[in-house]
């Protein structure tokens, strides 16, 4: 919403400076988005009078001018404009001045050997218009040396404010003035609008016809003025409209635009001679079309409200008029319409048709119903003044609704909700100045909001009115003490796990990324998703169409992007949500990562101490185990199974699980998946389902179990087993461990061998078993007995034989 300062002053007699007004506007909720002050911008430009203009000795198209700027010696300026001539008053810029259009700073220069000490300017150079046929021609009586902007009336700053959706009343200058007056910055000028006496019954009538569907128009008023002489509107009106970026069209149309911005009262004018019969306000019939004033044809449906005559639709109610019945210079009889529309319907119609207009913007926010008829009268006065003519009586279809409602306003409410101490007098004054009717006595006042404040629903709204006008700076900053409760952790278990997993993964050299929650449909399908319920109806791009079933596609895409930038060894992770369905319980919190190329945990690429090899499944497994351990998962008790989802390499991937609860997957990505994503391997990844990690049982104290420090040396024994190639090493470890859970404290694999010297169906697995005696040193015999048990147990469980 834009207005000029002089326009504001037609509604407000200011008692404060322009600067104070601008500052206060923001502080009462009308946020100033910008102030355009041409006078300020152009203050360096003055009126110059060309005293003499002679042909440049060395150039055909240049002239050497002697320019007077009032005081001082005339100034020599070389000018190329064809209209530079002796006696012309134009715009002069001295050296040092910045030319707005080009941003160049003027210097004293020589043009083809003749000195030039300034510049004579065109309108385009000043940023005022596209006019560049010559230098500006100012009125002959413009005083040389005077500030140019003041001479041509540009010293009227344009203010642009952002009006929030609840404040439709401030979409008119008069509403802005009312707020400022209430805030004590001036006096509101609100002259009574004299009712217009109709001289004759309106030859055009109107009726509402919504059949048995809900009415979309509470009230529709019109009047005919006959015998008008339409033409350009007066200069003052054109200046205002231009200043806020509107193009003057003709007086009748300009009056409606002026009323829109001056009073937030959109109106429409029809050429009465182009209207056939009476007007009907009704729902459009499916397929009806309208050639609107923007030159486009719109196809309408029965959800939209139109104004039609015998020929068909003439106007799209509250949004835009039709080209056919519009007013032009030939119009002699005009129908002025002032109506009320259903705001939501206007919004829906505009959205459906993709049609924005100043009228739609206002009607969908709600305009002052009580101003329907006074607005019509005010517009009539303007037209009579500008175009002459004779007004008819008013035709009103429907009825202007009475929106009067009384709100019980406990005066304590301001203190309760804001902490602000305000006196009853202050509160009454603010509300009254804003147009509220205040009656009753403390402690609870009866407050009737004005008709233009449809946004005021209850006492909280009144509190806002009081504090915003009195000033939010008066609200005292008040400490909010903590409760007396003991300090407890405020994070949930899942939140803690997410944080620990994040730090653990970063500490393993992975870099945290945040990728989009949406992936392409193809990516979703590759990673077990792609259900229709998770496809966005209005994706921003085709590759961001489906809610992600996994974090991996986004991370793999990121790894590829890094490789394409020349960084092929990315190690990336993300902690975030995946979507198995559209219900809250279908959302899972996942930590996932990828390692690409040679992005090993202890460094990538070539190094004098040994080049890093390609990433492999065990890097991903180590990442997954580390993150699980950081989350206090019972890592020692996890089973590792060689089954991972379809996007992993079937032979080089696994799942970490506790019983049936799969907590993590890891492995090389399936070659077909990498190919589909157009990524070169090697690439390994892992996914940890953070919300499936069990929490350790809560204990009454934080005391850890007593430590058992044996006084006796542990004993290590090595065994090399020959087993079938398909036998998991974990089975051997488990069997060895199971022989004596107390005595056997650790079992590790220190060598795995397949190949020469070994049956091709077998492999050799060498394990180191640690025995921890507790009461006394073990005898050789005892050790031999345990060793024999281990061999027997491993053989029994895995079919292994001790390697000779």
């Amino acid at each position: 919403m834009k207005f000029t300062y002089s326009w504001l002053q037609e509604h407000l007699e200011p008692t404060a400076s322009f600067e104070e007004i601008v500052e206060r506007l923001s502080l009462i909720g009308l946020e100033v988005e910008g102030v355009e002050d041409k006078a300020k911008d152009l203050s360096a430009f003055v009126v110059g009078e060309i005293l003499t203009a002679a042909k440049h000795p060395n150039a055909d198209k240049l002239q050497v001018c002697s320019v007077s700027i009032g005081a001082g010696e005339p100034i020599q300026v070389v000018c190329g404009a064809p209209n530079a001539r002796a006696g012309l008053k134009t715009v002069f810029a001295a050296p040092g001045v910045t030319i707005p259009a080009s941003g160049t700073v003027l210097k004293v220069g020589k043009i083809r050997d003749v000195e030039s000490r300034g510049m004579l300017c065109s309108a385009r150079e000043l940023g005022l218009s596209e006019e560049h046929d010559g230098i500006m021609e100012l009125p002959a009586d413009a005083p040389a040396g005077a500030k140019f902007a003041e001479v041509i009336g540009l010293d009227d700053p344009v203010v642009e404010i952002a009006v929030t959706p609840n404040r439709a009343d401030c979409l008119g200058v008069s509403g802005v003035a009312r707020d400022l007056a209430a805030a004590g910055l001036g006096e509101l000028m609100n002259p009574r609008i004299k009712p217009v006496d109709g001289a004759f019954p309106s030859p055009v009538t109107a009726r509402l016809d919504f059949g048995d569907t809900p009415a979309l128009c509470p009230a529709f008023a019109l009047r005919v003025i006959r015998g008008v002489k339409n033409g350009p509107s007066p200069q003052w009106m054109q200046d205002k409209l231009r200043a806020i970026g509107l193009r003057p069209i003709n007086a009748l149309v300009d009056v409606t635009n002026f009323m829109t911005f001056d009073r937030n009262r959109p109106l429409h004018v029809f050429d009465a001679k182009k209207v056939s019969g009476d007007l009907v306000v009704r729902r459009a019939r499916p397929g009806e079309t309208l050639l609107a004033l923007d030159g486009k044809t719109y196809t309408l449906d029965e959800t939209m409200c139109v104004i039609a005559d015998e020929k068909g639709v003439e106007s799209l109610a509250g949004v835009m008029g039709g080209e056919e019945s519009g007013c032009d210079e030939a119009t002699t009889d005009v129908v002025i319409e002032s109506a009320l529309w259903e705001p939501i319907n206007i919004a829906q119609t505009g959205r459906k048709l993709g049609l924005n207009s100043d009228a739609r913007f206002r009607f969908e926010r709600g305009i002052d119903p009580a101003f329907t008829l006074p607005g019509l009268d005010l517009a009539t006065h303007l037209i009579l003044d500008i175009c002459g003519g004779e007004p008819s009586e008013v035709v009103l279809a429907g009825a202007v609704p009475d929106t009067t409602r009384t709100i019980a306003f406990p005066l304590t409410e301001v203190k309760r909700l804001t902490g602000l101490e305000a006196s009853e007098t202050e509160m009454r004054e603010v509300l009254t100045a804003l147009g509220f009717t205040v009656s009753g006595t403390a402690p609870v006042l009866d407050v009737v909001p004005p008709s233009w404040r449809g946004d005021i629903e209850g006492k909280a709204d009144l509190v806002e009115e009081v504090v915003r006008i009195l000033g939010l700076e008066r609200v005292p900053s008040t400490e909010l003490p903590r409760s007396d409760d003991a300090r407890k952790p405020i994070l949930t278990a899942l939140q803690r796990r997410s944080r620990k997993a994040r730090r653990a993964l970063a500490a393993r050299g992975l870099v945290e990324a945040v990728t989009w929650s949406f992936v392409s449909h193809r990516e979703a399908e590759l990673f077990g998703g792609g259900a229709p319920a998770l496809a966005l109806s209005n994706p921003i791009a085709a590759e961001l169409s489906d809610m992600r079933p996994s974090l991996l596609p986004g991370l793999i895409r990121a790894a590829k992007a890094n490789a394409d930038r020349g960084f092929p060894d990315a190690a990336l992770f993300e902690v975030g949500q995946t979507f198995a369905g559209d219900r809250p319980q279908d959302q899972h919190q996942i930590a996932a990562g990828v390692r690409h190329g040679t992005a090993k945990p202890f460094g990538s690429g070539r190094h004098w101490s040994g080049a890093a090899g390609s990433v492999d499944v065990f890097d991903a497994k180590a990442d997954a185990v580390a993150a699980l351990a950081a989350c206090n998962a019972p890592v020692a008790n996890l089973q590792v199974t060689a089954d991972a989802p379809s996007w992993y390499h079937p032979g080089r991937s696994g799942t970490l699980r506790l019983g049936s609860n799969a907590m993590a997957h890891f492995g090389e990505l399936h070659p077909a998946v990498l190919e589909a994503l157009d990524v070169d391997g090697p690439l390994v990844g892992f996914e940890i389902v953070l919300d499936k990690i069990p929490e350790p049982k809560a204990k009454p104290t934080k005391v850890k179990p007593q430590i058992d420090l044996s006084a006796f040396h542990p004993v290590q024994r090595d065994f090399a087993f020959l087993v079938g190639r398909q036998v998991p090493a974990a089975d051997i470890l488990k069997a060895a461990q199971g022989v004596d859970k107390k005595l056997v404290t650790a079992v590790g694999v220190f060598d795995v061998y397949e190949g020469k010297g070994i049956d091709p169906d077998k492999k050799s697995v060498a394990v180191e078993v640690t025995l921890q005696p507790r009461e006394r040193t073990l005898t050789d015999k005892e050790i031999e007995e345990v060793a024999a048990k281990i061999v027997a147990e491993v053989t029994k469980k895995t079919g292994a034989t001790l390697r000779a």
Partner: protein
Amino acid sequence: MSEFVLTDHPALDALERDIASAILGADDEAALEQVRITALGKKGTVSELLKSLGGMSPDERKVMGPAINGLRDRVQGLLAARKETLKAAALEARLATERVDVTLPVREAPAEVGRVHPIAQVTEELVAIFADMGFSVAEGPDIEDDFHNFTALNFPPGHPAREMHDTFFLPPDESGTRKVLRTHTSPVQVRTMMSKAPPIRVICPGRTYRCDSDQTHTPMFHQVEGLVIDKGSHLGHLKWILEEFCKAFFEVDGVKMRFRPSFFPFTEPSMEVDIQCDRSRPGEIRFGEGNDWLEILGCGMVHPNVLRNCGLDPDVYQGFAWGMGIDRIAMLKYGMSDLRAFFEADVRWLSHYGFRPLDFPTLAGGLSA
């Protein structure tokens, strides 16, 4: 130790000189051992002299005993000293061959290479600040229904305020409810109020979505909202909390704030908040100084309709809420210039703007220390 003692026995003196010279002439431990055997071995020269004491008369022995024993002790001392010298020389010689080029670069520790994303780090900073003020952290689903995202928050169907949110839609579920990607984290406030009895103090950080994309907008971004509901918290408390937050977050001693009335469907009164800053240095914003204002958040008292929609009586309970962009405040604090880069996963950007894994933000140690 090694000085020669003149005795009255020239023969002993001569022997001692010979042994001493042999000791000093031994170049390694093996040669030295030979010298020792020659002197102190079973049949060594000194050993033989010691043996000869047995055959001497007491008077003779009285004189020769100390002389020979003295000789033996001095030889032993010389041997030990020479042994130390040779050992030190051998070690030195070995060390001289064991030099490496310590300027060769080592592999960087993984914890030096890994990074935490600025959004995660800043979220932890926020949690640290608000936890200290008694807030807990609430989260909710990204896929929401119309009720939690709009209706409960006092956005009437068809209201223009809904258009302020460019909403992503998903197909309707079995019950015909249209799902949306949450346009703000306010639905988490609704879920909190509907599931927990006041007093409530929570912050709700999380991903939010709007179908908008340009230099300053991404279809996905992050918000944090705060909510306080009890029987007495008012706008003055909100002001205090936000002041405390700004000081703690931007790590300045004081920062002027400007509260401007605004409009949000879910709060009444509603405000936008600007903070004092200095933008006179190119590419840098300093907070708590200067004469410029920068909008950082929206806030207000929870609208009575929202309280009612969540089953709370607005004449009994009251409270306030605020919300801001996590990405935005991260950019303001740490100086990233382009929001889109947050989501591009460029390892160069992440390494530069990300945080080391062990740099936990704490109030005790400093949020960004």
